Protein backbone atom coordinates (compact mmCIF):
# COMPACT_ATOMS: atom_id res chain seq x y z
CA UNK A 1 0.00 0.00 0.00
CA UNK A 2 2.43 2.62 -1.16
CA UNK A 3 0.05 5.55 -0.78
CA UNK A 4 -0.18 4.94 2.96
CA UNK A 5 3.54 4.86 3.17
CA UNK A 6 3.93 8.21 1.52
CA UNK A 7 1.33 9.80 3.77
CA UNK A 8 3.49 9.44 6.89
CA UNK A 9 7.06 9.89 5.85
CA UNK A 10 8.56 10.80 9.19
CA UNK A 11 7.75 7.81 11.39
CA UNK A 12 10.60 6.67 13.59
CA UNK A 13 11.85 3.21 12.75
CA UNK A 14 10.41 0.25 14.64
CA UNK A 15 12.70 -1.87 16.84
CA UNK A 16 12.11 -5.04 14.88
CA UNK A 17 10.50 -5.35 11.52
CA UNK A 18 9.72 -8.20 9.14
CA UNK A 19 9.32 -7.15 5.55
CA UNK A 20 7.90 -9.73 3.19
CA UNK A 21 9.85 -12.47 4.88
CA UNK A 22 9.70 -15.90 3.31
CA UNK A 23 11.18 -19.16 4.57
CA UNK A 24 11.28 -22.14 2.25
CA UNK A 25 12.10 -25.64 3.39
CA UNK A 26 13.20 -28.50 1.22
CA UNK A 27 14.25 -28.50 -2.37
CA UNK A 28 12.68 -28.86 -5.76
CA UNK A 29 9.55 -30.94 -5.58
CA UNK A 30 9.40 -31.04 -1.80
CA UNK A 31 9.63 -27.25 -1.54
CA UNK A 32 7.34 -25.93 1.11
CA UNK A 33 6.86 -22.36 2.16
CA UNK A 34 6.87 -22.23 5.93
CA UNK A 35 6.51 -18.48 5.89
CA UNK A 36 4.93 -16.55 3.07
CA UNK A 37 5.34 -12.79 2.74
CA UNK A 38 5.18 -12.11 6.44
CA UNK A 39 5.38 -8.47 7.45
CA UNK A 40 4.96 -6.78 10.80
CA UNK A 41 6.81 -4.51 13.17
CA UNK A 42 7.36 -4.34 16.90
CA UNK A 43 8.33 -1.34 18.94
CA UNK A 44 10.17 -1.12 22.19
CA UNK A 45 8.08 -2.06 25.20
CA UNK A 46 5.22 -3.64 23.33
CA UNK A 47 4.15 -7.26 22.99
CA UNK A 48 3.07 -8.68 19.71
CA UNK A 49 1.47 -12.09 20.08
CA UNK A 50 1.59 -14.57 17.23
CA UNK A 51 -1.14 -17.16 17.33
CA UNK A 52 -1.94 -20.04 15.08
CA UNK A 53 -2.14 -23.79 15.08
CA UNK A 54 0.73 -26.19 14.58
CA UNK A 55 2.13 -25.91 11.10
CA UNK A 56 1.16 -22.29 10.84
CA UNK A 57 4.81 -21.23 10.95
CA UNK A 58 4.89 -19.70 14.42
CA UNK A 59 8.08 -21.43 15.49
CA UNK A 60 9.68 -20.88 12.12
CA UNK A 61 8.96 -17.20 12.49
CA UNK A 62 10.57 -17.15 15.92
CA UNK A 63 13.61 -18.98 14.62
CA UNK A 64 13.86 -16.74 11.59
CA UNK A 65 13.77 -13.70 13.84
CA UNK A 66 16.55 -14.97 16.01
CA UNK A 67 18.63 -16.14 13.07
CA UNK A 68 18.31 -19.88 13.58
CA UNK A 69 16.58 -20.35 10.27
CA UNK A 70 17.84 -18.63 7.14
CA UNK A 71 15.20 -16.63 5.32
CA UNK A 72 14.71 -17.14 1.62
CA UNK A 73 13.60 -13.64 0.80
CA UNK A 74 12.51 -10.45 2.45
CA UNK A 75 14.26 -8.48 5.15
CA UNK A 76 14.38 -8.60 8.90
CA UNK A 77 15.56 -5.38 10.46
CA UNK A 78 16.61 -4.75 14.00
CA UNK A 79 16.81 -1.05 14.73
CA UNK A 80 16.71 -0.50 11.01
CA UNK A 81 19.72 -2.72 10.31
CA UNK A 82 19.29 -5.60 7.92
CA UNK A 83 20.18 -8.69 9.90
CA UNK A 84 21.11 -10.62 6.78
CA UNK A 85 24.38 -8.72 6.64
CA UNK A 86 27.41 -10.57 7.80
CA UNK A 87 29.12 -7.71 9.61
CA UNK A 88 30.64 -8.18 13.00
CA UNK A 89 28.45 -5.29 14.11
CA UNK A 90 25.36 -7.22 13.04
CA UNK A 91 26.43 -10.10 15.19
CA UNK A 92 26.78 -7.78 18.15
CA UNK A 93 23.37 -6.36 17.30
CA UNK A 94 21.91 -9.83 17.39
CA UNK A 95 22.58 -10.25 21.07
CA UNK A 96 20.07 -7.45 21.65
CA UNK A 97 17.45 -9.94 20.58
CA UNK A 98 17.18 -13.12 22.62
CA UNK A 99 14.91 -16.09 22.78
CA UNK A 100 13.07 -17.98 25.51
CA UNK A 101 12.33 -21.51 24.43
CA UNK A 102 9.17 -23.51 24.63
CA UNK A 103 10.38 -26.55 26.47
CA UNK A 104 11.96 -25.20 29.59
CA UNK A 105 13.83 -28.42 30.17
CA UNK A 106 15.34 -29.01 26.79
CA UNK A 107 16.76 -25.52 26.45
CA UNK A 108 19.27 -26.19 29.22
CA UNK A 109 22.23 -28.46 28.56
CA UNK A 110 21.48 -31.42 30.84
CA UNK A 111 25.15 -32.04 31.59
CA UNK A 112 26.00 -28.59 32.86
CA UNK A 113 25.33 -26.97 36.19
CA UNK A 114 23.13 -23.90 36.28
CA UNK A 115 26.23 -21.90 37.18
CA UNK A 116 27.98 -23.03 34.04
CA UNK A 117 24.92 -22.53 31.89
CA UNK A 118 24.59 -18.97 33.09
CA UNK A 119 28.28 -18.15 33.08
CA UNK A 120 29.24 -19.27 29.60
CA UNK A 121 27.45 -16.53 27.60
CA UNK A 122 29.26 -13.94 29.70
CA UNK A 123 32.56 -15.75 29.56
CA UNK A 124 32.64 -15.84 25.79
CA UNK A 125 31.99 -12.13 25.80
CA UNK A 126 35.03 -11.61 27.95
CA UNK A 127 33.27 -10.51 31.12
CA UNK A 128 35.66 -10.96 34.08
CA UNK A 129 34.70 -13.51 36.68
CA UNK A 130 33.72 -11.25 39.61
CA UNK A 131 31.45 -9.27 37.35
CA UNK A 132 29.99 -12.45 35.93
CA UNK A 133 29.05 -13.67 39.37
CA UNK A 134 27.54 -10.36 40.28
CA UNK A 135 25.47 -10.21 37.15
CA UNK A 136 24.29 -13.77 37.61
CA UNK A 137 23.21 -13.03 41.16
CA UNK A 138 21.33 -9.99 39.93
CA UNK A 139 19.61 -11.91 37.16
CA UNK A 140 18.59 -14.72 39.49
CA UNK A 141 17.09 -12.20 41.85
CA UNK A 142 15.06 -10.71 39.02
CA UNK A 143 13.57 -14.09 38.18
CA UNK A 144 13.02 -14.97 41.84
CA UNK A 145 15.45 -17.83 42.03
CA UNK A 146 17.78 -18.48 44.99
CA UNK A 147 21.52 -18.63 44.25
CA UNK A 148 21.54 -22.07 45.81
CA UNK A 149 20.33 -23.54 42.52
CA UNK A 150 23.61 -22.61 40.85
CA UNK A 151 25.22 -25.87 41.82
CA UNK A 152 22.31 -27.97 40.62
CA UNK A 153 21.76 -29.66 37.33
CA UNK A 154 18.69 -28.87 35.22
CA UNK A 155 16.98 -32.18 35.94
CA UNK A 156 16.87 -31.30 39.63
CA UNK A 157 14.72 -28.23 38.97
CA UNK A 158 11.00 -27.95 38.47
CA UNK A 159 9.62 -26.85 35.13
CA UNK A 160 8.94 -23.33 36.34
CA UNK A 161 12.42 -23.02 37.79
CA UNK A 162 13.99 -24.21 34.56
CA UNK A 163 12.00 -21.71 32.56
CA UNK A 164 13.15 -18.97 34.93
CA UNK A 165 16.76 -20.06 34.51
CA UNK A 166 16.20 -19.74 30.78
CA UNK A 167 14.88 -16.23 31.27
CA UNK A 168 17.74 -15.32 33.60
CA UNK A 169 20.21 -16.45 30.97
CA UNK A 170 18.88 -14.04 28.38
CA UNK A 171 18.57 -11.24 30.93
CA UNK A 172 22.31 -11.46 31.47
CA UNK A 173 22.87 -10.27 27.92
CA UNK A 174 20.78 -7.15 28.47
CA UNK A 175 18.55 -7.67 25.45
CA UNK A 176 15.93 -5.25 24.20
CA UNK A 177 13.68 -7.68 22.49
CA UNK A 178 12.73 -11.15 23.57
CA UNK A 179 11.27 -13.80 21.36
CA UNK A 180 9.08 -15.94 23.61
CA UNK A 181 8.37 -19.23 21.88
CA UNK A 182 5.43 -20.69 23.79
CA UNK A 183 7.20 -19.99 27.07
CA UNK A 184 4.52 -21.47 29.33
CA UNK A 185 2.87 -24.16 27.25
CA UNK A 186 4.93 -26.97 28.74
CA UNK A 187 4.20 -25.87 32.30
CA UNK A 188 1.46 -26.92 34.65
CA UNK A 189 -1.27 -24.36 34.98
CA UNK A 190 -0.19 -23.19 38.42
CA UNK A 191 3.34 -22.57 37.12
CA UNK A 192 2.11 -20.73 34.04
CA UNK A 193 0.80 -17.83 36.06
CA UNK A 194 4.12 -17.38 37.83
CA UNK A 195 6.09 -17.23 34.60
CA UNK A 196 3.59 -14.98 32.85
CA UNK A 197 3.60 -12.59 35.78
CA UNK A 198 7.39 -12.62 35.77
CA UNK A 199 7.46 -11.77 32.08
CA UNK A 200 5.06 -8.94 32.64
CA UNK A 201 7.19 -7.58 35.51
CA UNK A 202 10.35 -7.78 33.44
CA UNK A 203 8.71 -5.92 30.60
CA UNK A 204 7.63 -3.20 32.97
CA UNK A 205 11.10 -2.90 34.39
CA UNK A 206 13.22 -3.14 31.24
CA UNK A 207 10.82 -1.94 28.54
CA UNK A 208 11.41 -5.17 26.65
CA UNK A 209 9.65 -5.72 23.40
CA UNK A 210 8.12 -9.20 23.26
CA UNK A 211 7.41 -11.32 20.26
CA UNK A 212 5.12 -13.71 22.07
CA UNK A 213 4.34 -16.93 20.27
CA UNK A 214 1.48 -18.94 21.68
CA UNK A 215 -1.44 -21.11 20.81
CA UNK A 216 -3.13 -20.41 24.12
CA UNK A 217 -5.51 -17.46 23.80
CA UNK A 218 -5.73 -17.11 27.59
CA UNK A 219 -2.08 -16.22 28.02
CA UNK A 220 -2.25 -14.11 24.88
CA UNK A 221 -5.09 -12.22 26.49
CA UNK A 222 -2.88 -11.51 29.46
CA UNK A 223 0.44 -10.69 27.91
CA UNK A 224 -0.15 -9.10 24.50
CA UNK A 225 -0.81 -5.66 23.14
CA UNK A 226 -1.42 -6.69 19.59
CA UNK A 227 -2.15 -10.07 18.05
CA UNK A 228 -1.17 -11.48 14.69
CA UNK A 229 -3.00 -14.58 13.49
CA UNK A 230 -0.90 -16.87 11.38
CA UNK A 231 -2.41 -19.43 9.06
CA UNK A 232 -0.26 -21.75 6.96
CA UNK A 233 2.64 -19.35 6.89
CA UNK A 234 0.71 -16.13 6.31
CA UNK A 235 -0.59 -13.47 8.60
CA UNK A 236 -4.33 -13.46 8.03
CA UNK A 237 -5.25 -10.93 10.67
CA UNK A 238 -3.33 -8.43 12.73
CA UNK A 239 -4.95 -6.11 15.23
CA UNK A 240 -5.00 -4.70 18.67
CA UNK A 241 -5.80 -7.44 21.16
CA UNK A 242 -9.00 -5.91 22.41
CA UNK A 243 -10.14 -5.03 18.91
CA UNK A 244 -9.49 -8.55 17.74
CA UNK A 245 -11.35 -10.08 20.64
CA UNK A 246 -14.26 -7.75 20.15
CA UNK A 247 -14.41 -8.00 16.42
CA UNK A 248 -12.53 -10.88 14.80
CA UNK A 249 -12.86 -10.33 11.07
CA UNK A 250 -11.21 -13.31 9.52
CA UNK A 251 -13.25 -16.52 9.57
CA UNK A 252 -10.21 -18.38 10.77
CA UNK A 253 -9.75 -16.05 13.69
CA UNK A 254 -13.34 -16.56 14.60
CA UNK A 255 -12.95 -20.31 14.36
CA UNK A 256 -9.92 -20.06 16.59
CA UNK A 257 -11.77 -18.07 19.22
CA UNK A 258 -14.83 -20.24 19.11
CA UNK A 259 -12.81 -23.39 19.53
CA UNK A 260 -11.33 -22.32 22.82
CA UNK A 261 -12.81 -24.51 25.50
CA UNK A 262 -14.26 -23.29 28.76
CA UNK A 263 -16.63 -20.77 27.25
CA UNK A 264 -19.64 -22.71 28.33
CA UNK A 265 -20.54 -23.73 24.83
CA UNK A 266 -20.99 -27.39 24.51
CA UNK A 267 -21.88 -27.83 20.93
CA UNK A 268 -20.26 -25.85 18.25
CA UNK A 269 -21.07 -26.45 14.64
CA UNK A 270 -17.79 -26.86 12.88
CA UNK A 271 -16.65 -27.96 9.49
CA UNK A 272 -15.00 -31.32 9.75
CA UNK A 273 -12.02 -30.75 7.55
CA UNK A 274 -8.89 -29.38 9.02
CA UNK A 275 -5.61 -27.88 8.06
CA UNK A 276 -2.44 -29.71 7.43
CA UNK A 277 0.82 -28.64 5.91
CA UNK A 278 0.41 -30.87 2.92
CA UNK A 279 -3.12 -29.86 2.07
CA UNK A 280 -2.49 -26.27 1.20
CA UNK A 281 -4.91 -24.89 -1.30
CA UNK A 282 -3.06 -24.35 -4.52
CA UNK A 283 -4.81 -21.21 -5.54
CA UNK A 284 -6.85 -18.59 -3.88
CA UNK A 285 -7.23 -18.02 -0.19
CA UNK A 286 -5.35 -20.64 1.78
CA UNK A 287 -8.27 -21.02 4.13
CA UNK A 288 -10.91 -21.54 1.48
CA UNK A 289 -11.20 -25.28 1.92
CA UNK A 290 -12.22 -24.86 5.52
CA UNK A 291 -14.04 -21.57 5.24
CA UNK A 292 -17.80 -21.45 5.76
CA UNK A 293 -18.02 -18.24 3.73
CA UNK A 294 -16.15 -19.51 0.73
CA UNK A 295 -17.03 -18.11 -2.69
CA UNK A 296 -15.55 -18.63 -6.12
CA UNK A 297 -13.48 -15.49 -5.63
CA UNK A 298 -11.84 -17.09 -2.59
CA UNK A 299 -10.88 -20.13 -4.62
CA UNK A 300 -9.17 -18.10 -7.28
CA UNK A 301 -7.60 -15.06 -5.78
CA UNK A 302 -5.60 -14.90 -2.60
CA UNK A 303 -6.68 -11.89 -0.56
CA UNK A 304 -4.04 -9.43 0.55
CA UNK A 305 -3.70 -8.10 4.03
CA UNK A 306 -5.54 -4.80 4.17
CA UNK A 307 -6.64 -2.31 6.75
CA UNK A 308 -10.25 -2.44 7.78
CA UNK A 309 -10.56 -0.60 11.03
CA UNK A 310 -8.45 1.05 13.62
CA UNK A 311 -5.07 -0.63 13.23
CA UNK A 312 -6.92 -3.72 12.16
CA UNK A 313 -5.54 -5.68 9.23
CA UNK A 314 -7.15 -8.69 7.69
CA UNK A 315 -6.63 -10.85 4.63
CA UNK A 316 -10.14 -11.88 3.66
CA UNK A 317 -12.30 -10.96 0.69
CA UNK A 318 -15.36 -10.84 2.92
CA UNK A 319 -13.95 -8.35 5.39
CA UNK A 320 -13.56 -5.57 2.85
CA UNK A 321 -16.04 -3.33 4.54
CA UNK A 322 -14.16 -0.09 4.84
CA UNK A 323 -12.13 1.83 2.36
CA UNK A 324 -8.45 1.97 2.99
CA UNK A 325 -8.38 5.68 2.64
CA UNK A 326 -10.88 6.18 5.43
CA UNK A 327 -9.29 3.71 7.77
CA UNK A 328 -7.97 5.12 10.94
CA UNK A 329 -4.30 4.28 11.03
CA UNK A 330 -2.09 5.02 13.98
CA UNK A 331 1.60 5.74 13.83
CA UNK A 332 2.30 2.23 15.01
CA UNK A 333 0.21 0.81 12.23
CA UNK A 334 2.14 2.83 9.73
CA UNK A 335 5.17 0.85 10.71
CA UNK A 336 3.26 -2.30 10.10
CA UNK A 337 2.17 -1.04 6.75
CA UNK A 338 5.58 0.09 5.82
CA UNK A 339 6.62 -3.45 6.42
CA UNK A 340 3.69 -4.75 4.44
Amino acid sequence: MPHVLSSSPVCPLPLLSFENVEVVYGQARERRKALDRVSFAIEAGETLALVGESGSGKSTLAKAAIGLVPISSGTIRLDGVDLAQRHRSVRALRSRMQMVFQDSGSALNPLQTIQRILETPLKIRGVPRPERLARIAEALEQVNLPTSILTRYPHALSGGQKQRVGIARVLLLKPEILVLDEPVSSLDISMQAQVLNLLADLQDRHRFAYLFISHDMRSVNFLSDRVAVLYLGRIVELADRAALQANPLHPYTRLLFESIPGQGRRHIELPSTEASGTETANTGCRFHKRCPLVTSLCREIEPNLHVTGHDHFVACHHAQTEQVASARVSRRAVNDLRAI
Partner: protein
Amino acid sequence: MLALLKKAYLNNSLVSGATLLSVLAAVIIVAPFLYPGDPQSMVAPALIRPGEDARYILGTDGLGHDLTAELMHGAGISVMIGIGSVTVGVFVGTIIGAIGGYFGGLVDDLLTRLTELFQTVPTFLLVMALVCVFEPSLVVIIAAIAATSWVSVARITRAQFRTLRQRDYVLAARTLGYSDARIIVVEILPNAIAPIVANISLMIASAILLESALSFIGLGDPNVVSWGSMIAEGRDYMRSDWYLIAIPGAAIAATVFAFNLVGDGLNHVLNARASS
Protein backbone atom coordinates in the same frame (compact mmCIF):
# COMPACT_ATOMS: atom_id res chain seq x y z
CA MET B 1 25.64 -39.46 38.40
CA LEU B 2 25.31 -41.53 41.52
CA ALA B 3 22.18 -43.07 40.14
CA LEU B 4 24.11 -43.94 37.02
CA LEU B 5 26.78 -45.68 39.05
CA LYS B 6 24.16 -47.50 41.03
CA LYS B 7 22.47 -48.62 37.86
CA ALA B 8 25.80 -49.71 36.44
CA TYR B 9 26.41 -51.68 39.58
CA LEU B 10 23.09 -53.41 39.27
CA ASN B 11 23.61 -54.29 35.63
CA ASN B 12 24.55 -57.94 35.48
CA SER B 13 26.38 -58.01 32.19
CA LEU B 14 28.34 -54.91 33.04
CA VAL B 15 29.48 -56.35 36.35
CA SER B 16 30.44 -59.74 34.99
CA GLY B 17 32.10 -58.19 31.96
CA ALA B 18 34.02 -55.75 34.11
CA THR B 19 35.10 -58.55 36.42
CA LEU B 20 36.45 -60.53 33.49
CA LEU B 21 38.18 -57.44 32.17
CA SER B 22 39.82 -56.70 35.50
CA VAL B 23 41.20 -60.23 35.52
CA LEU B 24 42.50 -59.51 32.05
CA ALA B 25 43.99 -56.21 33.18
CA ALA B 26 45.67 -57.95 36.10
CA VAL B 27 47.14 -60.51 33.71
CA ILE B 28 48.46 -57.78 31.45
CA ILE B 29 49.99 -55.92 34.36
CA VAL B 30 51.71 -58.85 36.01
CA ALA B 31 52.88 -60.45 32.74
CA PRO B 32 56.16 -58.53 32.46
CA PHE B 33 56.98 -59.23 36.12
CA LEU B 34 56.01 -62.87 36.11
CA TYR B 35 57.57 -63.56 32.73
CA PRO B 36 60.18 -60.90 32.10
CA GLY B 37 61.83 -60.84 28.72
CA ASP B 38 60.68 -62.08 25.40
CA PRO B 39 57.94 -64.68 25.63
CA GLN B 40 59.21 -66.04 22.35
CA SER B 41 62.52 -67.19 23.77
CA MET B 42 62.88 -70.90 23.75
CA VAL B 43 62.89 -71.80 27.39
CA ALA B 44 61.79 -75.36 27.45
CA PRO B 45 61.42 -78.56 25.55
CA ALA B 46 58.81 -78.36 22.84
CA LEU B 47 55.25 -79.58 23.16
CA ILE B 48 54.92 -80.15 26.87
CA ARG B 49 51.25 -80.71 27.44
CA PRO B 50 49.29 -78.55 29.87
CA GLY B 51 49.59 -79.80 33.41
CA GLU B 52 52.49 -82.08 32.57
CA ASP B 53 55.17 -79.86 34.02
CA ALA B 54 54.53 -77.56 36.96
CA ARG B 55 56.90 -74.94 35.57
CA TYR B 56 54.87 -74.64 32.40
CA ILE B 57 51.31 -74.80 33.55
CA LEU B 58 49.76 -74.47 30.12
CA GLY B 59 52.55 -76.38 28.46
CA THR B 60 54.85 -75.31 25.66
CA ASP B 61 54.42 -74.96 21.94
CA GLY B 62 56.26 -76.50 19.06
CA LEU B 63 59.26 -74.22 19.50
CA GLY B 64 59.49 -74.63 23.25
CA HIS B 65 57.90 -71.30 24.09
CA ASP B 66 56.14 -71.26 27.43
CA LEU B 67 52.47 -71.05 26.55
CA THR B 68 51.61 -69.30 29.79
CA ALA B 69 54.12 -66.56 29.07
CA GLU B 70 52.93 -66.24 25.50
CA LEU B 71 49.32 -66.13 26.55
CA MET B 72 49.94 -63.45 29.17
CA HIS B 73 52.08 -61.30 26.91
CA GLY B 74 49.67 -61.93 24.05
CA ALA B 75 46.86 -60.53 26.16
CA GLY B 76 48.60 -57.18 26.21
CA ILE B 77 49.18 -57.19 22.48
CA SER B 78 45.66 -58.25 21.57
CA VAL B 79 44.13 -55.69 23.90
CA MET B 80 46.56 -53.03 22.76
CA ILE B 81 45.63 -53.60 19.13
CA GLY B 82 41.98 -53.52 20.10
CA ILE B 83 42.21 -50.38 22.17
CA GLY B 84 44.75 -48.67 19.92
CA SER B 85 42.77 -49.11 16.74
CA VAL B 86 39.53 -48.16 18.41
CA THR B 87 41.08 -45.04 19.92
CA VAL B 88 42.23 -43.88 16.52
CA GLY B 89 38.96 -44.96 14.93
CA VAL B 90 36.85 -43.19 17.53
CA PHE B 91 38.93 -40.05 17.28
CA VAL B 92 38.69 -39.86 13.50
CA GLY B 93 35.10 -41.06 13.36
CA THR B 94 33.94 -38.60 15.98
CA ILE B 95 35.54 -35.66 14.22
CA ILE B 96 34.16 -36.62 10.82
CA GLY B 97 30.73 -37.51 12.17
CA ALA B 98 30.55 -34.36 14.28
CA ILE B 99 31.51 -32.05 11.45
CA GLY B 100 29.16 -33.70 8.98
CA GLY B 101 26.27 -33.90 11.42
CA TYR B 102 26.64 -30.40 12.78
CA PHE B 103 27.21 -28.42 9.63
CA GLY B 104 25.13 -30.50 7.26
CA GLY B 105 24.90 -29.37 3.66
CA LEU B 106 27.71 -29.96 1.23
CA VAL B 107 30.30 -30.88 3.87
CA ASP B 108 27.95 -33.48 5.23
CA ASP B 109 27.23 -34.80 1.77
CA LEU B 110 30.91 -35.25 1.05
CA LEU B 111 31.67 -36.90 4.37
CA THR B 112 28.67 -39.16 4.04
CA ARG B 113 29.88 -40.25 0.64
CA LEU B 114 33.27 -40.96 2.16
CA THR B 115 31.76 -43.17 4.84
CA GLU B 116 29.61 -44.90 2.26
CA LEU B 117 32.70 -45.56 0.21
CA PHE B 118 34.39 -47.23 3.16
CA GLN B 119 31.29 -49.26 3.77
CA THR B 120 31.16 -50.62 0.27
CA VAL B 121 34.53 -52.31 0.47
CA PRO B 122 34.34 -55.35 2.76
CA THR B 123 36.13 -54.60 6.01
CA PHE B 124 38.25 -57.68 6.11
CA LEU B 125 39.35 -57.42 2.50
CA LEU B 126 40.26 -53.80 3.05
CA VAL B 127 42.25 -54.54 6.20
CA MET B 128 43.94 -57.42 4.46
CA ALA B 129 44.88 -55.24 1.51
CA LEU B 130 46.10 -52.42 3.75
CA VAL B 131 48.23 -54.70 5.90
CA CYS B 132 49.59 -56.20 2.75
CA VAL B 133 50.44 -52.83 1.25
CA PHE B 134 52.27 -51.59 4.30
CA GLU B 135 53.60 -54.88 5.76
CA PRO B 136 52.33 -56.41 8.94
CA SER B 137 53.58 -54.55 11.96
CA LEU B 138 51.73 -53.45 15.06
CA VAL B 139 51.38 -49.87 13.86
CA VAL B 140 50.13 -50.90 10.44
CA ILE B 141 47.66 -53.39 11.86
CA ILE B 142 46.31 -50.82 14.29
CA ALA B 143 46.04 -48.23 11.54
CA ALA B 144 44.38 -50.66 9.14
CA ILE B 145 41.77 -51.72 11.66
CA ALA B 146 41.23 -48.10 12.61
CA ALA B 147 40.78 -47.26 8.95
CA THR B 148 37.69 -49.43 8.92
CA SER B 149 36.39 -48.93 12.44
CA TRP B 150 35.92 -45.18 12.23
CA VAL B 151 33.00 -45.63 9.88
CA SER B 152 30.55 -46.86 12.49
CA VAL B 153 31.63 -44.14 14.92
CA ALA B 154 31.18 -41.51 12.26
CA ARG B 155 27.69 -42.75 11.50
CA ILE B 156 26.64 -42.82 15.13
CA THR B 157 28.19 -39.45 15.82
CA ARG B 158 26.64 -37.93 12.75
CA ALA B 159 23.20 -39.23 13.67
CA GLN B 160 23.62 -37.93 17.20
CA PHE B 161 24.77 -34.52 16.03
CA ARG B 162 21.98 -34.26 13.54
CA THR B 163 19.46 -34.86 16.29
CA LEU B 164 21.16 -32.87 18.99
CA ARG B 165 21.85 -29.81 16.87
CA GLN B 166 18.07 -29.35 16.72
CA ARG B 167 17.77 -29.48 20.49
CA ASP B 168 16.72 -26.32 22.17
CA TYR B 169 19.84 -26.02 24.27
CA VAL B 170 21.95 -26.07 21.14
CA LEU B 171 19.69 -23.53 19.47
CA ALA B 172 19.94 -21.52 22.66
CA ALA B 173 23.71 -21.71 22.52
CA ARG B 174 23.60 -20.41 18.96
CA THR B 175 21.35 -17.52 19.85
CA LEU B 176 23.63 -16.73 22.75
CA GLY B 177 26.48 -16.31 20.29
CA TYR B 178 28.56 -19.41 21.03
CA SER B 179 31.10 -20.31 18.38
CA ASP B 180 30.55 -23.46 16.31
CA ALA B 181 33.62 -25.06 17.82
CA ARG B 182 32.37 -24.47 21.33
CA ILE B 183 28.91 -25.76 20.49
CA ILE B 184 30.36 -28.91 18.93
CA VAL B 185 32.84 -29.66 21.67
CA VAL B 186 31.24 -28.30 24.83
CA GLU B 187 27.52 -28.37 24.19
CA ILE B 188 26.83 -31.29 21.86
CA LEU B 189 29.68 -33.72 22.22
CA PRO B 190 29.20 -34.54 25.93
CA ASN B 191 25.55 -35.27 25.22
CA ALA B 192 26.34 -37.27 22.11
CA ILE B 193 28.99 -39.38 23.73
CA ALA B 194 26.84 -42.04 25.38
CA PRO B 195 26.16 -44.25 22.37
CA ILE B 196 29.72 -43.75 21.17
CA VAL B 197 31.08 -44.86 24.53
CA ALA B 198 28.69 -47.78 24.65
CA ASN B 199 29.90 -48.73 21.20
CA ILE B 200 33.60 -48.53 22.08
CA SER B 201 33.60 -51.76 23.99
CA LEU B 202 31.88 -53.61 21.16
CA MET B 203 34.36 -52.07 18.74
CA ILE B 204 37.31 -53.24 20.79
CA ALA B 205 35.80 -56.70 20.76
CA SER B 206 35.48 -56.76 17.00
CA ALA B 207 38.95 -55.24 16.55
CA ILE B 208 40.41 -58.10 18.59
CA LEU B 209 38.50 -60.56 16.44
CA LEU B 210 39.71 -58.85 13.31
CA GLU B 211 43.31 -58.97 14.47
CA SER B 212 43.02 -62.62 15.32
CA ALA B 213 41.68 -63.37 11.85
CA LEU B 214 44.51 -61.39 10.30
CA SER B 215 47.12 -63.21 12.35
CA PHE B 216 45.40 -66.45 11.58
CA ILE B 217 45.90 -66.08 7.84
CA GLY B 218 49.48 -65.07 8.49
CA LEU B 219 49.25 -61.31 8.28
CA GLY B 220 50.08 -60.62 11.93
CA ASP B 221 53.19 -58.91 13.26
CA PRO B 222 55.70 -61.76 13.52
CA ASN B 223 57.72 -60.03 16.25
CA VAL B 224 55.06 -60.07 18.90
CA VAL B 225 52.83 -62.73 20.29
CA SER B 226 49.17 -62.11 19.82
CA TRP B 227 46.50 -64.65 20.47
CA GLY B 228 45.64 -64.78 16.81
CA SER B 229 49.25 -65.55 15.89
CA MET B 230 49.31 -68.24 18.58
CA ILE B 231 46.39 -69.93 16.87
CA ALA B 232 48.04 -69.53 13.50
CA GLU B 233 51.23 -71.12 14.85
CA GLY B 234 49.34 -73.79 16.68
CA ARG B 235 47.35 -74.70 13.64
CA ASP B 236 50.00 -76.98 12.23
CA TYR B 237 49.98 -78.83 15.53
CA MET B 238 46.26 -78.88 15.88
CA ARG B 239 45.66 -82.47 14.96
CA SER B 240 47.79 -83.80 17.79
CA ASP B 241 48.29 -80.87 20.15
CA TRP B 242 44.89 -79.29 20.12
CA TYR B 243 45.57 -77.28 23.27
CA LEU B 244 47.81 -74.97 21.24
CA ILE B 245 44.71 -73.71 19.50
CA ALA B 246 42.14 -74.26 22.19
CA ILE B 247 43.86 -72.14 24.82
CA PRO B 248 44.45 -68.94 22.82
CA GLY B 249 41.10 -69.40 21.08
CA ALA B 250 39.36 -69.59 24.41
CA ALA B 251 41.32 -66.56 25.59
CA ILE B 252 40.13 -64.59 22.57
CA ALA B 253 36.57 -65.73 23.04
CA ALA B 254 36.62 -64.88 26.76
CA THR B 255 38.14 -61.46 26.20
CA VAL B 256 35.86 -60.57 23.34
CA PHE B 257 32.96 -61.91 25.38
CA ALA B 258 33.97 -59.68 28.28
CA PHE B 259 34.22 -56.60 26.09
CA ASN B 260 30.89 -57.43 24.51
CA LEU B 261 29.32 -57.89 27.93
CA VAL B 262 30.60 -54.52 29.02
CA GLY B 263 29.43 -53.02 25.76
CA ASP B 264 25.95 -54.44 26.18
CA GLY B 265 25.88 -53.31 29.77
CA LEU B 266 27.04 -49.81 28.91
CA ASN B 267 24.51 -49.66 26.13
CA HIS B 268 21.82 -50.58 28.55
CA VAL B 269 22.88 -48.16 31.25
CA LEU B 270 23.77 -45.22 29.01
CA ASN B 271 20.90 -45.55 26.57
CA ALA B 272 18.41 -45.97 29.38
CA ARG B 273 19.66 -42.70 30.72
CA ALA B 274 19.51 -41.07 27.35
CA SER B 275 15.92 -42.11 26.87
CA SER B 276 14.74 -41.18 30.35
